[in-house]
């Protein structure tokens, strides 16, 4: 699926560039449709990339830190113990987490675009957090609209275990 998405993305970008040199000036309608399709493909592609990254990380043993391993196990069972720590997280961390969650939520909201879009259960922690933390959900809902591609890319470079970071920060 992501191969398809990547191809569509590449084709779309190529078409967008060639639009600029077309006679008659930039066609607004066509460039709008192209950029929408490109964004949809890009989201699917990034979602799939994160899935692959997460799978690789899970296969490779985690850093031998009880604290970091703990949240994974806990999240599978119950995330309650995490909640107080999350709430105690400094605002900067919250913002970073929100960026990640924002992206994840966007992927949630955008996954309707692809038939075979993968449910992001590759991020069990995020899912758990979103299920339990209503306040964060509220924040995510508010910032979804203003996402630009940059925040997604930032999310990729950040660890796939935001909860770890939260705990580390604490």
């Amino acid at each position, binding site marked *: 699926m992501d191969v398809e998405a990547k191809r569509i993305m590449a084709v779309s970008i190529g078409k967008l560039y060639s639009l600029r040199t077309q006679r008659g000036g930039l066609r607004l309608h066509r460039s709008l449709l192209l950029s*929408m399709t490109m964004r949809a493909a890009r989201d699917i592609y990034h979602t799939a990339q994160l899935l692959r990254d997460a799978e690789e990380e899970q296969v490779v043993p985690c850093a031998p830190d009880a604290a970091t391993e703990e949240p994974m196990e806990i999240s599978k069972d119950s995330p309650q113990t995490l909640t107080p720590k999350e709430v105690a997280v400094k605002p900067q961390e919250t913002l970073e987490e929100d960026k990640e969650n924002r992206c994840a939520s966007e992927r949630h909201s955008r996954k*309707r675009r692809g038939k075979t879009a993968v449910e992001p259960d590759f991020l069990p922690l995020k899912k758990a957090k979103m299920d339990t933390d209503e306040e964060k959900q509220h924040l995510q809902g508010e910032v979804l609209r203003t996402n630009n591609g940059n925040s997604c890319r930032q999310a990729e470079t950040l660890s796939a275990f935001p909860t770890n970071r939260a705990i580390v920060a604490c």
Partner: protein
Amino acid sequence: MVSGAGGGGNDVQWCFSQVKGAIDDDVAEADIISTVEFNHSGELLATGDKGGRVVIFQQETENKSQPQCRSEYNVYSTFQSHEPEFDYLKSLEIEEKINKIRWLPQKNAAQFLLSTNDKTIKLWKISERDKRPEGYNLKEEDGRYRDATTITTLRVPVFRPMDLMVEASPRRVFANAHTYHINSISVNSDNETYLSADDLRINLWHLEITDRSFNIVDIKPANMEELTEVITAAEFHPHQCNTFVYSSSKGTIRLCDMRASALCDKHSKLFEEPEDPSNRSFFSEIISSISDVKFSHNGRYMMTRDYLSVKIWDLNMENRPVETYQVHEYLRSKLCSLYENDCIFDKFECCWNGNDSVVMTGSYNNFFRMLDRTQRRDVTLEASRESCKPRQVLKPRRVCAGGKRKKDEISVDSLDFNKKILHTAWHPQENIIAVATTNNLYIFQEKVN
């Protein structure tokens, strides 16, 4: 045989009548037909092309003593409507391609039409001259002045018949009102005003006034990065001079009432069908974009065309169309390829027959579809040089979507996507249709026994 009202799509057998245009396979870009339109009586048929030219055909007066001789359309007038221009401020070339032609209802001996390219609309007067004055006293017939000393008598100049000459002259030029590319023009039923629509705005003009127009719809967002949809087509209601509709790239149609407010950004009705989630794909946005919207002649319905289907809407029901017809559903699985070769962006038009019982639209491989609303039947026909014998009946075509191909069927992979029928027109009263392939205009008529 149903006649007169132009009804009965499938009781009717269609025959080849004429084809206009070059036979060469090598198509000159300027010759690509970009619009086709009958006038209100059907006597005149206008085409516009990418080279900015307008060609008008006139139907010959029928020979009543020989009903088998169907009337033919012959060239009546040809003129250069628009020339390529350059916008120096934006460093942009403005194409001369004629996007739309709309006829004005005839008021006197002359005919009037509006033609538009991306930026400028022009009102053309087409008039006939079939007599000229002869017998001037001071001038020779060729215009040279006579030597005054040779004039010994006086005479009254008289009009004498001459070979018919058809003159086209630009009477009005409506310019500088559109930042974006004009996609539609529509003459109001009041015969005094008309609208022009571009991607983001719709303007209202008076036919007599060229130096100003009123903006009646503006969907441009404050921040262009928030742009999510554009206007794709607009049309006035055929009888209610206060009502018009415009379609969007998101598959919605808005009906606006100009009495409600000066700026019709707020619609009176919003026609939208919920999307079928099982059909969702990367290309759902593109294929839901409406490429054409047309009111029925009786003003009770409107028809929209998107990439794969034609929908008929009752103006009194906003939440879904009353009828949906699949034009070429077999293309749904090919959308990715059609995206790569740009065909998915093709803008097909659609048209009604005279009594609103049949609708017609184009497809690929020079196929076009007739969709009979009353009989709930449809037929696929082809505009091809191979079926060009006079009065040759068109045979229905079938496309094989998959599986075993039957005899006479054509498989989806054999379709020629360079041969597309985007523009079609139906005579307002008779069963005569004009179908434009890339650079040829086919005229088909109902078979007369």
